[in-house]
């Protein structure tokens, strides 16, 4: 059963245009300072108690229990993390009020795990490969919360920044192994990352003699995702400069002009701007692309 969010966060606590422009460009936004240490320690204790010599206990395996929120329901601490006002503010900025947690999962990777997950996109792709009737700019959010320190060699989730702009079906990217710009979400305990649903990602090998845990929730929006963050300054010179300077961000095989144009369209949609002004009639998008 989905868990619906009913509270509305005040506008001043929402993501600002600089943070949102970074999300639009990279496809994820990460925070090191949203979760108090003692809360992360409590979640980690609950995570350690959820594995034994056979791996994760059945109660936290939602494919087995048919409970899409097994660990979430077992751990009061992890519920507290995702109900922190600052966490809820980020979620509302990306998804709008009334968003729903469709499912969650505790990902457990054993000590000295020598094989990694393949590159994939969760539950399909976006844009041209979306189901009919789904708005082209609608997106879900995947949270990745690390309750303990996850240095590079422990293999926290690998993401490909900018890949959320690519239209692919999830398993088709499994051919790739190493890609320029790939980034492990390494960091200190309490790190929480908010990812666009279309971001390419995969779990990594674990070179450390300890279990690695990552807790994920997939959230669905229930409103059009436009004008739902703090849009003050969305059309400022500073923001225009940001997009100009990042025009070639994450360009791999020559797709930067197409990606920049899509980012410009999406930015205007996100900010609640009117239809694109294009006095030239050429489809050029001026300063944003």
């Amino acid at each position: 059963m989905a868990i619906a969010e009913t509270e509305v966060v005040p506008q001043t606590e929402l993501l600002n245009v600089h943070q949102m422009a970074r999300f639009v460009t990279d496809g994820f936004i990460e925070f090191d300072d949203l979760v108090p240490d003692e809360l992360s320690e409590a979640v980690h204790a609950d995570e350690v108690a959820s594995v034994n010599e056979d791996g994760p206990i059945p109660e936290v395996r939602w494919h087995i229990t048919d409970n899409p929120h097994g660990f979430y329901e077992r751990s009061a601490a992890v519920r507290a993390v995702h109900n922190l006002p600052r966490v809820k503010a980020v979620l509302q900025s990306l998804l709008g009020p009334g968003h729903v947690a469709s499912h969650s999962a505790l990902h457990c990777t054993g000590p000295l795990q020598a094989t990694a997950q393949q590159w994939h996109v969760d539950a399909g792709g976006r844009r041209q490969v979306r189901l009919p009737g789904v708005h082209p700019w609608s997106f879900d959010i995947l949270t990745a919360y690390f309750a303990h320190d996850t240095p590079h060699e422990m293999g926290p989730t690998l993401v490909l920044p900018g890949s959320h702009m690519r239209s692919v079906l999830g398993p088709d990217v499994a051919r790739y192994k190493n890609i320029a710009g790939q980034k492990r979400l390494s960091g200190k305990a309490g790190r929480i990352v908010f990812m666009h649903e279309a971001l390419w990602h995969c779990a990594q090998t674990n070179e450390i003699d300890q279990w690695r845990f990552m807790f994920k929730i997939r959230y669905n929006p229930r409103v059009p995702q436009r004008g739902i963050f703090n849009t003050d300054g969305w059309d400022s010179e500073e923001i225009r400069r940001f997009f100009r300077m990042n025009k070639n961000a994450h360009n791999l095989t020559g797709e930067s002009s197409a990606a920049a144009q899509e980012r410009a369209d999406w930015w205007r949609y996100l900010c609640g701007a009117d239809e694109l002004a294009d006095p030239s009639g050429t489809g050029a998008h001026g300063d944003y692309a």
Partner: protein
Amino acid sequence: MSPVRQQILILHLQSGDLGSPTVAWALYDGALPADAVQMQTGSEYQAPYESVLDAMRDGWRVFQASPQPERSAATGTGQLANEFWLERNVEVEG
């Protein structure tokens, strides 16, 4: 005579020029036994060859190249373009 096995190296280049920089790489090694670990995602941060030409100079043979991508702003972006498949045969213990 020792048996021979195929190794496949897939390189993606920044442009269609075979000398342009490598931006993605994957090795599938037919000489490894079934229980050995093949190249894993995120296992390397430095490409094994700077380009396809660089790999050819080391003995790899190109046997397939992706067609020129049909792209426009309207179609957006998808899979990585400029994909080249290379192979070499290596001897294994019989």
